[in-house]
């Protein structure tokens, strides 16, 4: 296979990392909502933790983007 084509395929495959980020963000918001429905008075206090978890989960998917960029541009 041509190196150029293999690079493109590899960069595309690296985007699969976003599937994990999607699952993670869904779990975080879903569990926050179910927790908030059960105990609405405790929900406000956990909101910063929700945002922190969201940012951490989203960043994990973006590591895949970094891998794709390294494959495309660094080699």
């Amino acid at each position, binding site marked *: 296979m041509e190196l150029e084509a293999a690079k493109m395929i590899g960069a595309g495959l690296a985007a699969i990392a976003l599937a994990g980020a999607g699952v993670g963000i869904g779990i975080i918001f879903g569990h926050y909502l179910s927790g908030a429905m059960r105990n609405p008075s405790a929900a406000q206090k956990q909101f910063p933790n929700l*945002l*922190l978890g*969201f*940012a*951490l989960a*989203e*960043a994990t998917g*973006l*590591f895949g*983007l*970094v891998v794709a*960029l390294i494959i495309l541009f660094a080699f």
Partner: protein
Amino acid sequence: MAINPMHQFNIYRIGPEIKLGEVDISFTNSSLFMVISSLAILILFNLGTKKNYLIPNKIQLLAELSYGFISKMISDTAGSKAKPYFAFIFSLFMFVLFCNMIGMIPYSFTVTSHIIVTFVLAAFIFIGVTIIGFIKHGVGYLKLFVPSGVPLVLMPLIVIIEIISYLSRPVSLSVRLFANMLAGHTMMKVFGGFVISLGIVGGWLPLSFSVALTGLEILVAFLQAYVFAILTCIYLNDALNLHH
């Protein structure tokens, strides 16, 4: 016409070329925007704290709010021992926040979308926290790598994993901020390109999408600055309040 979405991250020299030996230390657009955001912070907080009204005006309210926000964050995550490091974490948060936010202005430059900037910040934090840990606890700081209550059989494996996770801190801290900024700005440019290429007929859909994306990016710009600061607090917490 197709504009390269990576074009916005170009670094070019402003003014004369300055060389220190082999190293190029010329003034670039990146340094210009660092100076702009530092000046913006200085002006904001000087105006906000110059006259202390009993009933604060808008700028003073902003300064007091951000002070209270960071102060609460530090005491929640790192305890009262981290109080002396307030100034460092506050300026770190403000610098990252202003770099991210000024990058959201069209045609400006996002300083934090370059890995070298975020990596230097993260490496500085990592080295500083390690030095603080060794000063506070001496050789006992190495206990950080030996969690209590682990079966002796698993111990060698756990210690290796702990050391790797400790050493990967600066990498993950810097890549998180850099990748978020890079991906966000690239995505906005790509959707902006769709608006142009679809023209007046179909351009409305990506246009509305990019408006929503701008809102999301402003949220992400704030969140990533917050995450950067809170993770610094968590690392500092490990160094100050060593659990046995």
